[in-house]
């Protein structure tokens, strides 16, 4: 079974990596006026740009892993019994996979691949 230190290594690495990719994402938003960047055609054009779509996918994966593990840590502190701990672990894992799957589907559909 995976040890807590290994989970926390993943947690820290995804957190730091997410900082960089989100910074790139924000900078990309600022190359044009913010209102224009949210324009429908611009958004679709972004998705059609494969490197940018990959950047969005990496943001999705990194933040989903980091965020849902953070939620697991918070929920583990609320109650201490085996049923709760297993439930929290399975729930956060399932939620993380669902969010990544749904987000990936959106990125793939919007990019027209």
């Amino acid at each position, binding site marked *: 079974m995976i040890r*807590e*230190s290994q989970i926390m290594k993943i947690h*820290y690495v995804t957190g730091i990596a997410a900082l960089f990719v989100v910074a790139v994402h924000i900078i990309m938003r600022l190359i044009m006026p913010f209102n224009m960047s949210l324009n429908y055609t611009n958004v679709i054009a972004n998705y059609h740009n494969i490197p940018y779509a990959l950047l969005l996918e990496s943001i999705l994966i990194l933040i989903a892993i980091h965020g849902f593990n953070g939620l697991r840590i918070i929920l*583990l*502190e*609320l109650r*201490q019994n085996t049923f709760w701990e297993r439930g929290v672990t399975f729930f956060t894992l399932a939620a993380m996979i669902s969010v990544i799957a749904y987000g990936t589907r959106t990125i793939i559909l919007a990019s027209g691949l």
Partner: protein
Amino acid sequence: MSLEENKKPTEQNEKKPPKEILLRVFRDNRQKEDNSGHRYDTFKVSTQRWTTVLDALLHVKSYQDSSIGIRYSCRMASCGSCGMKINGIPRLACYTKISELQGDTITCEPLANFPHIRDLVTDFSQFFTHHKEMQPYIHNDMSEISDMKKLSEFKQSPEDVDKYLQFSYCIKCGLCYSACPTVATDTKFPGPQAISQAYRYVADTRDNSTKQRLKIVDDRHGVWRCHFAGSCSSVCPKGVDPALGIQLLRGHLLSFSKNEKKIAQLQDRSKNSEI
């Protein structure tokens, strides 16, 4: 300076009149049948500059209300028995002078995060269970007394001792455990005292079961659940920094720290092979 001059009262030598304070003491007994809840009893106590909270409480117990439940022993911050919340902060009653507290009313309450027994007395069994879980003793085949042939002295340089010395000053008073916000919500969290003791033995070059100890603290409710509030270090009466111990232990688990024990073992081996 002549003897006469020496006798003249200076500002420092002048004997100040006793100051009267109000001592509010938490009163409750979990074993009583009527379950009427807790109350605070107030006592007037005359104090001097050097009077400690424990002195005041014992004065009250001797002359005003003998039924106050309080645990104490050494009266010199060595045994760690008289831990309690004084004006809301976990402190040792024998180590806290009334003159250093602000205000004329001093509130004494039992330590938080410990099961309450009576008045100012709390149950330390869970705290000591966490402490024992960390195996707070040196693991080394060479220290096995049953095999006299194997027994040998352990050499440690002053630098080696410095790595764990401050953590060995812990008197197990439970103040850090009481101040810890994680312990307040997570009962399985060993607490700053136990984790810093684990670090104390991990950092000790005489001990050779680092892996075993790291496995104990590398748990779902182990070292990773510390929020690094730092309140454990700020309340410690012996100057121990449990928060530092926890962070150093995390460094070991993340392989950020140098494995000094392994380096020392390799150096020893190479020295022996040279001989």
